[in-house]
Protein backbone atom coordinates (compact mmCIF):
# COMPACT_ATOMS: atom_id res chain seq x y z
CA UNK A 1 0.00 0.00 0.00
CA UNK A 2 2.83 2.37 0.86
CA UNK A 3 4.38 1.74 -2.52
CA UNK A 4 1.17 2.75 -4.23
CA UNK A 5 1.11 6.10 -2.41
CA UNK A 6 4.71 6.78 -3.34
CA UNK A 7 3.73 6.08 -6.94
CA UNK A 8 0.91 8.62 -6.85
CA UNK A 9 3.13 11.45 -5.62
CA UNK A 10 5.31 11.16 -8.68
CA UNK A 11 2.19 11.24 -10.83
CA UNK A 12 1.20 14.66 -9.39
CA UNK A 13 1.28 16.23 -12.84
CA UNK A 14 -1.41 13.91 -14.13
CA UNK A 15 -3.77 14.32 -11.21
CA UNK A 16 -3.68 18.10 -11.50
CA UNK A 17 -4.35 17.83 -15.22
CA UNK A 18 -7.25 15.50 -14.56
CA UNK A 19 -8.59 17.94 -11.99
CA UNK A 20 -8.33 20.77 -14.49
CA UNK A 21 -10.20 18.81 -17.11
CA UNK A 22 -12.96 17.81 -14.71
CA UNK A 23 -13.22 21.42 -13.57
CA UNK A 24 -13.46 22.60 -17.17
CA UNK A 25 -16.21 20.10 -17.92
CA UNK A 26 -18.11 21.03 -14.79
CA UNK A 27 -18.00 24.77 -15.28
CA UNK A 28 -19.39 24.67 -18.77
CA UNK A 29 -22.30 22.42 -17.94
CA UNK A 30 -24.00 23.92 -14.95
CA UNK A 31 -27.28 22.35 -13.94
CA UNK A 32 -29.04 24.95 -11.88
CA UNK A 33 -31.91 24.62 -9.45
CA UNK A 34 -33.68 27.98 -9.54
CA UNK A 35 -35.28 28.57 -6.16
CA UNK A 36 -37.21 31.64 -7.29
CA UNK A 37 -39.35 33.55 -4.85
CA UNK A 38 -39.67 37.27 -5.55
CA UNK A 39 -38.87 40.24 -7.79
CA UNK A 40 -35.35 39.04 -8.58
CA UNK A 41 -37.08 36.24 -10.44
CA UNK A 42 -37.94 38.73 -13.19
CA UNK A 43 -34.30 39.56 -13.75
CA UNK A 44 -33.46 35.86 -13.54
CA UNK A 45 -35.95 35.23 -16.36
CA UNK A 46 -34.50 38.12 -18.35
CA UNK A 47 -31.00 36.71 -17.98
CA UNK A 48 -32.09 33.25 -19.02
CA UNK A 49 -33.84 34.39 -22.17
CA UNK A 50 -32.65 35.49 -25.54
CA UNK A 51 -31.51 39.07 -24.89
CA UNK A 52 -28.90 38.36 -22.19
CA UNK A 53 -28.48 34.72 -22.98
CA UNK A 54 -27.15 32.53 -20.21
CA UNK A 55 -27.22 29.42 -22.40
CA UNK A 56 -23.97 30.44 -24.04
CA UNK A 57 -22.27 29.74 -20.71
CA UNK A 58 -23.68 26.26 -20.66
CA UNK A 59 -26.00 27.12 -17.80
CA UNK A 60 -29.25 27.34 -19.67
CA UNK A 61 -30.96 24.15 -18.57
CA UNK A 62 -32.62 24.33 -15.20
CA UNK A 63 -33.12 20.99 -13.53
CA UNK A 64 -36.13 20.98 -11.29
CA UNK A 65 -35.01 18.29 -8.93
CA UNK A 66 -32.40 18.94 -6.26
CA UNK A 67 -30.86 15.52 -6.69
CA UNK A 68 -29.99 16.22 -10.30
CA UNK A 69 -28.59 19.71 -10.02
CA UNK A 70 -25.32 21.12 -8.81
CA UNK A 71 -25.84 24.85 -8.42
CA UNK A 72 -28.60 26.24 -6.20
CA UNK A 73 -29.64 29.74 -7.29
CA UNK A 74 -31.48 31.33 -4.39
CA UNK A 75 -33.37 34.16 -6.04
CA UNK A 76 -35.43 36.55 -3.98
CA UNK A 77 -36.28 37.17 -0.34
CA UNK A 78 -36.34 34.22 2.03
CA UNK A 79 -38.77 34.54 4.91
CA UNK A 80 -38.64 32.60 8.14
CA UNK A 81 -41.58 30.49 7.01
CA UNK A 82 -39.62 29.33 3.98
CA UNK A 83 -36.23 28.83 5.67
CA UNK A 84 -36.71 25.15 6.66
CA UNK A 85 -37.73 24.36 3.07
CA UNK A 86 -34.54 25.95 1.75
CA UNK A 87 -32.40 24.02 4.19
CA UNK A 88 -34.10 20.79 3.21
CA UNK A 89 -33.50 21.39 -0.49
CA UNK A 90 -29.85 22.20 0.17
CA UNK A 91 -29.44 18.99 2.15
CA UNK A 92 -31.01 16.97 -0.64
CA UNK A 93 -28.49 18.11 -3.22
CA UNK A 94 -25.58 15.79 -3.94
CA UNK A 95 -21.92 16.75 -3.76
CA UNK A 96 -20.28 18.72 -5.34
CA UNK A 97 -22.68 21.62 -4.94
CA UNK A 98 -22.47 25.37 -5.01
CA UNK A 99 -24.86 28.09 -3.86
CA UNK A 100 -25.39 31.48 -5.48
CA UNK A 101 -27.08 34.21 -3.46
CA UNK A 102 -28.87 36.27 -6.09
CA UNK A 103 -30.13 39.65 -5.07
CA UNK A 104 -29.41 41.67 -1.97
CA UNK A 105 -32.29 40.12 0.00
CA UNK A 106 -30.45 36.81 0.04
CA UNK A 107 -27.02 38.34 0.61
CA UNK A 108 -27.85 40.42 3.67
CA UNK A 109 -31.59 40.84 3.90
CA UNK A 110 -31.93 44.02 1.89
CA UNK A 111 -34.04 46.77 3.36
CA UNK A 112 -36.52 44.29 4.86
CA UNK A 113 -35.17 44.44 8.40
CA UNK A 114 -38.25 43.04 10.13
CA UNK A 115 -39.74 40.09 11.97
CA UNK A 116 -40.37 37.99 8.90
CA UNK A 117 -37.17 38.03 6.83
CA UNK A 118 -33.97 36.04 7.09
CA UNK A 119 -31.13 38.56 7.03
CA UNK A 120 -28.92 36.77 4.59
CA UNK A 121 -29.04 33.10 3.71
CA UNK A 122 -25.46 32.57 4.81
CA UNK A 123 -26.89 32.24 8.30
CA UNK A 124 -28.46 28.98 7.10
CA UNK A 125 -26.35 27.49 4.30
CA UNK A 126 -22.82 28.19 3.00
CA UNK A 127 -22.78 30.54 0.03
CA UNK A 128 -20.22 30.65 -2.75
CA UNK A 129 -21.03 33.72 -4.86
CA UNK A 130 -22.95 36.81 -3.79
CA UNK A 131 -24.64 38.86 -6.49
CA UNK A 132 -25.93 42.07 -4.92
CA UNK A 133 -28.43 44.42 -6.48
CA UNK A 134 -32.09 45.12 -6.09
CA UNK A 135 -32.60 43.52 -8.58
CA UNK A 136 -29.16 42.99 -10.11
CA UNK A 137 -28.90 43.91 -13.76
CA UNK A 138 -28.43 40.92 -16.09
CA UNK A 139 -24.86 42.03 -16.76
CA UNK A 140 -24.15 41.71 -13.04
CA UNK A 141 -25.61 38.24 -13.05
CA UNK A 142 -23.39 37.15 -15.91
CA UNK A 143 -20.37 38.59 -14.09
CA UNK A 144 -21.30 36.61 -10.98
CA UNK A 145 -21.77 33.51 -13.11
CA UNK A 146 -18.27 33.88 -14.52
CA UNK A 147 -16.83 34.20 -11.01
CA UNK A 148 -18.71 31.03 -10.10
CA UNK A 149 -17.15 29.31 -13.08
CA UNK A 150 -13.67 30.26 -11.86
CA UNK A 151 -14.54 28.80 -8.49
CA UNK A 152 -15.81 25.59 -10.03
CA UNK A 153 -12.66 25.30 -12.11
CA UNK A 154 -10.47 25.43 -9.06
CA UNK A 155 -12.51 22.99 -7.01
CA UNK A 156 -10.56 19.97 -5.76
CA UNK A 157 -12.22 16.72 -4.76
CA UNK A 158 -10.74 16.26 -1.32
Amino acid at each position, binding site marked *: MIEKEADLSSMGFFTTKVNDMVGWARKYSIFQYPFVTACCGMEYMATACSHYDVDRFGAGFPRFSPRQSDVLFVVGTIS*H*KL*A*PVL*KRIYDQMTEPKWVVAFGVCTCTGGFY*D*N*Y*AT*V*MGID*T*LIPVDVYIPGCPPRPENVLDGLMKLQEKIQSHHDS
Partner: protein
Amino acid sequence: MILEKIKANFGQAVLETHSFRGDDTALVSREKIFELAKFLKEDPELDFNILMDLTAVDYLKMEKPYRYEVVYHFFSLAKKHRVRIKVPLTEENPSVATLTSLWPIANWFEREVWDMFGIRFEGHPNLKRIMMYEEFVGHPLRKDYPVRKRQPLIGPKN
Protein backbone atom coordinates in the same frame (compact mmCIF):
# COMPACT_ATOMS: atom_id res chain seq x y z
CA MET B 1 -77.93 59.19 0.41
CA ILE B 2 -76.24 56.06 1.68
CA LEU B 3 -75.44 57.48 5.10
CA GLU B 4 -78.97 58.83 5.54
CA LYS B 5 -80.44 55.44 4.77
CA ILE B 6 -78.13 53.70 7.20
CA LYS B 7 -78.93 56.21 9.93
CA ALA B 8 -82.66 55.89 9.26
CA ASN B 9 -82.65 52.12 9.65
CA PHE B 10 -80.07 51.63 12.39
CA GLY B 11 -80.41 54.87 14.33
CA GLN B 12 -78.95 53.96 17.72
CA ALA B 13 -76.18 51.72 16.50
CA VAL B 14 -74.57 54.35 14.26
CA LEU B 15 -72.06 56.17 16.46
CA GLU B 16 -70.74 58.72 13.97
CA THR B 17 -70.50 59.41 10.25
CA HIS B 18 -68.31 61.57 8.05
CA SER B 19 -67.38 62.04 4.41
CA PHE B 20 -63.75 63.03 4.50
CA ARG B 21 -62.56 63.71 0.92
CA GLY B 22 -65.73 62.22 -0.51
CA ASP B 23 -65.53 58.75 1.12
CA ASP B 24 -68.77 57.93 2.98
CA THR B 25 -67.87 56.44 6.34
CA ALA B 26 -69.98 55.24 9.26
CA LEU B 27 -68.93 54.03 12.69
CA VAL B 28 -71.25 51.26 13.86
CA SER B 29 -71.34 49.33 17.11
CA ARG B 30 -70.25 45.72 17.09
CA GLU B 31 -73.55 44.03 17.86
CA LYS B 32 -75.29 45.24 14.75
CA ILE B 33 -72.64 44.67 12.12
CA PHE B 34 -74.07 41.42 10.77
CA GLU B 35 -77.52 42.90 10.33
CA LEU B 36 -76.09 46.01 8.76
CA ALA B 37 -74.05 43.99 6.28
CA LYS B 38 -77.12 41.95 5.38
CA PHE B 39 -79.14 45.13 4.93
CA LEU B 40 -76.47 46.67 2.71
CA LYS B 41 -76.40 43.55 0.56
CA GLU B 42 -80.13 43.02 0.17
CA ASP B 43 -81.58 46.51 -0.03
CA PRO B 44 -82.38 47.22 -3.70
CA GLU B 45 -81.41 50.88 -3.58
CA LEU B 46 -78.02 50.30 -1.97
CA ASP B 47 -77.18 46.91 -3.53
CA PHE B 48 -73.67 46.45 -2.14
CA ASN B 49 -72.83 43.09 -3.59
CA ILE B 50 -69.02 43.09 -3.35
CA LEU B 51 -66.99 43.09 -0.15
CA MET B 52 -63.85 44.82 -1.38
CA ASP B 53 -61.71 44.80 1.71
CA LEU B 54 -61.76 43.84 5.36
CA THR B 55 -58.97 45.07 7.56
CA ALA B 56 -58.25 46.50 10.99
CA VAL B 57 -56.36 49.41 12.52
CA ASP B 58 -54.76 49.51 15.95
CA TYR B 59 -55.32 52.91 17.58
CA LEU B 60 -52.98 52.42 20.53
CA LYS B 61 -50.82 55.43 19.67
CA MET B 62 -53.71 57.77 18.88
CA GLU B 63 -55.95 59.06 21.65
CA LYS B 64 -59.18 57.17 21.19
CA PRO B 65 -61.53 55.53 23.72
CA TYR B 66 -61.19 52.13 22.04
CA ARG B 67 -58.21 50.21 20.76
CA TYR B 68 -59.09 48.49 17.51
CA GLU B 69 -61.29 49.31 14.57
CA VAL B 70 -62.33 46.72 12.02
CA VAL B 71 -62.82 48.44 8.67
CA TYR B 72 -65.09 47.09 5.92
CA HIS B 73 -65.15 48.50 2.39
CA PHE B 74 -68.23 47.70 0.32
CA PHE B 75 -68.80 48.34 -3.38
CA SER B 76 -71.90 48.15 -5.52
CA LEU B 77 -71.40 46.92 -9.05
CA ALA B 78 -74.70 48.21 -10.41
CA LYS B 79 -74.82 51.59 -8.68
CA LYS B 80 -71.04 52.16 -8.60
CA HIS B 81 -70.89 53.61 -5.13
CA ARG B 82 -68.72 52.75 -2.14
CA VAL B 83 -69.12 52.90 1.59
CA ARG B 84 -66.80 52.29 4.50
CA ILE B 85 -68.10 50.80 7.77
CA LYS B 86 -65.93 50.84 10.87
CA VAL B 87 -66.55 48.84 14.03
CA PRO B 88 -64.76 49.93 17.22
CA LEU B 89 -63.51 47.20 19.55
CA THR B 90 -61.98 47.52 22.98
CA GLU B 91 -58.88 45.81 24.23
CA GLU B 92 -60.74 43.58 26.67
CA ASN B 93 -63.15 42.17 24.11
CA PRO B 94 -61.62 42.13 20.63
CA SER B 95 -64.20 40.02 18.88
CA VAL B 96 -66.92 40.56 16.31
CA ALA B 97 -69.32 38.43 14.26
CA THR B 98 -68.07 36.87 11.06
CA LEU B 99 -69.44 37.71 7.61
CA THR B 100 -68.48 34.39 6.02
CA SER B 101 -72.05 33.32 5.43
CA LEU B 102 -72.76 36.42 3.35
CA TRP B 103 -69.49 36.65 1.42
CA PRO B 104 -67.12 33.63 1.27
CA ILE B 105 -64.11 35.88 0.75
CA ALA B 106 -64.49 37.12 4.33
CA ASN B 107 -63.03 33.74 5.35
CA TRP B 108 -59.52 34.65 4.19
CA PHE B 109 -59.70 38.34 5.06
CA GLU B 110 -60.71 37.52 8.63
CA ARG B 111 -57.95 34.94 8.96
CA GLU B 112 -55.48 37.63 8.03
CA VAL B 113 -56.90 40.06 10.58
CA TRP B 114 -56.70 37.34 13.25
CA ASP B 115 -53.09 36.62 12.28
CA MET B 116 -51.96 40.22 12.25
CA PHE B 117 -54.06 41.77 15.05
CA GLY B 118 -55.51 39.03 17.20
CA ILE B 119 -59.15 39.98 16.68
CA ARG B 120 -61.47 36.99 17.00
CA PHE B 121 -64.37 36.41 14.65
CA GLU B 122 -67.21 34.48 16.21
CA GLY B 123 -68.58 31.72 14.05
CA HIS B 124 -65.61 31.55 11.70
CA PRO B 125 -65.15 27.99 10.39
CA ASN B 126 -61.35 27.88 10.30
CA LEU B 127 -59.66 30.66 12.27
CA LYS B 128 -55.96 29.95 11.98
CA ARG B 129 -52.91 31.85 10.81
CA ILE B 130 -52.50 32.59 7.16
CA MET B 131 -49.37 34.74 6.70
CA MET B 132 -47.15 33.66 9.56
CA TYR B 133 -46.27 30.13 10.60
CA GLU B 134 -48.15 28.39 13.40
CA GLU B 135 -45.22 28.48 15.85
CA PHE B 136 -45.17 32.29 15.80
CA VAL B 137 -46.20 33.89 19.09
CA GLY B 138 -47.86 37.26 19.07
CA HIS B 139 -49.66 39.38 16.53
CA PRO B 140 -47.22 41.36 14.39
CA LEU B 141 -49.20 44.39 13.22
CA ARG B 142 -50.16 45.51 16.69
CA LYS B 143 -48.43 48.72 17.66
CA ASP B 144 -46.71 47.14 20.65
CA TYR B 145 -44.99 44.40 18.66
CA PRO B 146 -41.43 45.58 17.86
CA VAL B 147 -40.69 45.43 14.18
CA ARG B 148 -37.38 43.61 14.49
CA LYS B 149 -38.35 40.92 16.94
CA ARG B 150 -37.66 37.68 15.13
CA GLN B 151 -38.75 34.19 16.06
CA PRO B 152 -36.76 32.03 13.68
CA LEU B 153 -37.64 28.39 13.15
CA ILE B 154 -34.06 27.53 12.22
CA GLY B 155 -30.94 29.61 12.18
CA PRO B 156 -29.61 32.27 14.52
CA LYS B 157 -31.80 34.92 16.08
CA ASN B 158 -29.92 37.95 14.80
